[in-house]
């Protein structure tokens, strides 16, 4: 994946090379041909930049809806996104106005260079958004867990055997704590990352950090899915207690 920007650049620029080869023999034909090549390159560059701006704007909306991460992190992420959008928008306008091959070539290379920043900002923001969502869910599960605990105590006072659902409740608590820890670890990992600016060592470190954070989030998701199953199991138990209590009450009345 890391080589793709360079491959892209080569493919784009290789399309321009034949025009130079023909330039000395048939100038008018080649001129027309080069203009067409430039137009095609501009269209594809525009397509590429637009796609990134769309993704960044979508990320910006998501960042603004984050509620659990710190204001500092949210503002830093939003600042990075807006800087990228501004950079790409400027580049898009410049490419659209390019009329010669050399300038276009340089601007297309700028897309490739900016791609490395884009490939940090985008996953960094989306990992933060997912960690924020996990924090929201763990808070909700905590609240539901407290309610379920109260209901189980009531059921126990009514004579029900709550050992099985209590075990589920204990597991729910453990899953919540682990999910919180994983989400926090993901945030701690990606928050300090900065663009590599061409430094391969930093690029490798960033890539490793992003993958680690992604793995942390995957573990947190597994925790939350298991926690949701624990909640379902406890609710099922409470429903059965309620049903048997109703049945007993009906039998007693008869």
């Amino acid at each position, binding site marked *: 994946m890391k080589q793709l920007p360079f491959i892209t650049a080569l493919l784009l620029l290789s399309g321009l090379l034949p025009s130079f080869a023909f330039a000395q023999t048939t100038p008018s034909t080649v001129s027309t041909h080069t203009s067409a090549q430039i137009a095609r390159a501009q269209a594809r560059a525009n397509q590429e930049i637009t796609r990134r701006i769309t993704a960044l704007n979508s990320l910006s909306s998501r960042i603004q809806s984050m509620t659990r991460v710190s204001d500092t992190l949210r503002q830093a992420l939003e600042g990075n996104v807006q800087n990228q959008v501004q950079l790409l928008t400027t580049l898009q306008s410049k490419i659209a106005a390019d009329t010669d091959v050399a300038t276009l070539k340089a601007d297309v290379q700028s897309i490739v260079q900016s791609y490395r920043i884009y490939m940090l900002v985008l996953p960094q923001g*989306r990992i933060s958004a997912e960690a924020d969502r996990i924090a*929201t869910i763990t808070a909700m599960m905590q609240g539901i867990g407290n*309610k379920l605990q109260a209901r189980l105590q009531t059921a126990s006072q009514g004579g029900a055997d709550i050992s099985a659902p209590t075990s589920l409740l204990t597991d729910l608590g453990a899953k919540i704590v682990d999910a919180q820890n994983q989400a926090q670890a993901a945030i701690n990992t990606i928050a300090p990352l900065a663009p590599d600016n061409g430094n391969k060592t930093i690029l490798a470190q960033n890539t490793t950090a992003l993958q680690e954070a992604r793995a942390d989030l995957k573990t947190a998701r597994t925790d939350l899915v298991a926690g949701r199953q624990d909640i379902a199991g406890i609710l099922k138990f409470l429903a059965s207690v309620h049903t048997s209590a109703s049945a007993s009450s009906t039998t007693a009345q008869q």
Partner: protein
Amino acid sequence: MSAGTKWFIALVVLIAAGVVAWHTGIFSNLFPRPSQQTLSTNTAPQQATSTQPQNTTGLPTNSQDTSNAALQQDTAALDAQMQGLTSDSASVDQAFNDQSIQQSY
């Protein structure tokens, strides 16, 4: 000492006594101090917050409401967030798998 001077001294003594009485709180029942009004204004939102603790968990129902109906609403809200998590997760995967559009001719 003239009668006017006596009246003036008496007036000063009365004003001083009034100021002392004000600060000792004698009139507090009749005229609450501004600081007390501010304090009551400040405490009202805190009381309101303490009666609506569901805001801290993000659940749609009150934290003290353990009824089946409340739990049903809470789990529905939880499931909506779980769906959002699936979407967020897909976005993360997409960010890692993002590739440039092939710009060939």
